[in-house]
């Protein structure tokens, strides 16, 4: 039987007194893959940030429930510890903190258990090989001097190492060449199983090639205006958002 992971109810949120999300309802069950489509400025990234608890956005109405618990008031790190993960569209560069150090600190924060250095390193090395990341990158400062593609692969590396219950992927495939999209897509499908779920923003359906999409939501001006199965991805790739705009306006 399906278990509800995330339930978003009538979510209104914005930044600096400007409402961006105007009543979102969305339910994600364990084992599912959801895709959000929508033109630029429709509120896709805001939705991801609000689910993750970005302090720059305020929820003015509605609620977020994760595994039956209201998380609307939780801080970002508490949501992460509950099992939510965000793969950033533009990951931050943070000098002085190595990839390995950050990941080990994060893993310990999430599990509450001390990580043995050697076991952790071995696991990290295997994952890096899987994602074709040069092993020396574990000792490099977080995203500093990484190319766009390397930053995205580093996000997927974190996803695989931290094993959240819900992965929010914000245009993880944008700006990548065909090979890199393949690698990222393989990483996501390696992560995905019956106990977790993905919410994916994409402009490029190729990241979905290896995944079975359950539900597609079309976001327009802060509202979900159309929902459907995987066929909606192809339709919008073919026809764009034009006809949806017309029918909603």
């Amino acid at each position: 039987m399906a278990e509800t992971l995330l339930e978003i109810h009538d979510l209104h949120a914005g930044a600096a007194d400007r409402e961006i999300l105007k009543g979102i309802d969305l339910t994600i069950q364990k084992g599912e893959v959801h895709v959000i489509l929508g033109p630029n400025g429709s509120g896709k990234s805001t939705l991801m940030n609000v689910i993750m608890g970005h302090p720059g956005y305020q929820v003015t109405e509605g609620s977020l429930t994760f595994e039956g618990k209201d998380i609307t008031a939780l801080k970002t790190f508490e949501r992460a510890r509950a099992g939510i993960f965000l793969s950033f569209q533009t990951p931050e560069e943070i000098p002085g903190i190595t990839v390995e150090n950050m990941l080990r600190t994060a893993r310990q924060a999430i599990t509450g258990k001390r990580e043995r250095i050697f076991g952790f390193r071995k696991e990290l090395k295997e994952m890096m090989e899987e994602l074709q990341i040069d092993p020396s990158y574990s000792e490099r400062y977080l995203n500093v001097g990484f190319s766009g593609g390397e930053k995205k692969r580093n996000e997927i590396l974190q996803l695989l190492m931290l094993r959240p219950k819900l992965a929010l992927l914000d245009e993880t495939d944008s700006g990548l060449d065909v090979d890199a999209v393949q690698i990222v897509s393989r990483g996501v499908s390696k992560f995905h199983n019956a106990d977790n779920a993905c919410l994916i923003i994409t402009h490029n359906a190729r990241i979905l090639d290896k995944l079975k999409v359950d539900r597609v939501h079309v976001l327009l001006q802060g509202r979900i205006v159309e929902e459907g199965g995987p066929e909606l991805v192809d339709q919008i790739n073919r026809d764009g958002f034009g006809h949806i705009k017309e029918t909603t306006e």
Partner: protein
Amino acid sequence: MEQQKTFVEDIERTLYDIRNEDHSVYKTERGLTEEIIRDISRQKKDPAWMLDFRLQSLEKYYRIPLPVWGPDISELNMDDIVTYVRPGGKMAGNWQEVPEEIKATFDRLGIPEAERTSLSGVGAQYDSEVVYHRVQKELSDQGVIYTDFETAVHEYEDIVKEYFMKLVPPKDHKFAALHGAVWSGGSFVYVPEGMHVDIPLQSYFRLNAAGAGQFEHTLIICEKNSSLHFIEGCSAPRYNVTNLHAGCVELYVKEGARLRYSTIENWSRNMMNLNTKRALVEKDGLIEWVSGSFGSHVSCLYPSSILHGENARCEFTGVTFASRGQDLDTGATVVMLAPNTSANINTRTISKSGGAATYRSAVKVTPGAKGAKCLVNCESLLLDEKSRSDTLPVMDIETDDVEIGHEAKIGRISDEAIFYLTSRGIAEEEAQAMIVRGFVEPVAKALPLEYAVEMNNLINMELVGSMG
């Protein structure tokens, strides 16, 4: 965006703030008079020349005005400062002879452990007198002298007379003159030609009596082609009366010698730290300064390197962390006098909770310093709106044939970086501490391991309120 104010404003420093009852056998009158100086000198059984030196310094102290630049030190009243406090014990050659009460304090600071773990000699200064001091036998067998300064004045009088306050003459500034008059305690190290001291020598300084100043003198001589790493650690218990530290460090690095001088200062938050440190570096010599300033109320600290011989080099790495109620003015001075000399200055300053941190440096390249190279890199990090950071690098270049580089940056911790780390499950304070540790990382790398750990602990205490 409003940051959560969850940091611990006033950190718990019980480890450092151990205060014993004042059982001192002898205390000078408050304020500074010729009588006091004669008293100090008599207590120390100074040779006649040293008494003269003290009295001449006192004259200069009266004449020289307070500096008109730098942090405000007007709350300092010398009449309130008991300049000399002698603890209730004689010099002890081994740990058993140290008075119980003093021993308990050192135990809490972990000093005997520090010695047990690979340090070759511990000179611990309690108040103004060295009470516990030992040098491993093999060091003295090799001709290396490591002793407290009073002993040096008597046993190595010729060497002391030749070098003492020649590099930092009392006429230099008011606090150098004060130091010349009232100096007490400190370390003396002599490394003979060609000798490499493999393990670092370490000394701990502590202040205990309320209102007592500390004026320890450190004199290190590294003869030709020798090498040494000297580590100075400072922590003082907290008191209400303003405390003054006006120590003096003189380092002589002879031809081809290398000296690394590391300090992490964590004075209590009422200390005025007006310390003078200077090194004279001869041909092919190298001075490496590693300097961490965390404590004190006010600090003025600019270790200077006089590159006197051809190819003489200076490497300076510094970290300064100013929090509430602190005004820390730190940096470095380099004087390049000979051809192909080089200097590399690399500093990180952090200010939070209304603290003020100033980076101040002076680099002088004289006409004789053809082919000199100097690189300055100073970066500052502001943790909130209330705090202050200033960068004042001065360069005085008197020759064309030089290579000079300067890079200064003042930044803030970006909210997006905090969001990124917290989205990985790391709590906000820890995320901030990680970013600060990352900021000082290039400098922390230069520290010996136990000091890197101590510095990380200090950063954690400031930001997370716990020892890491």
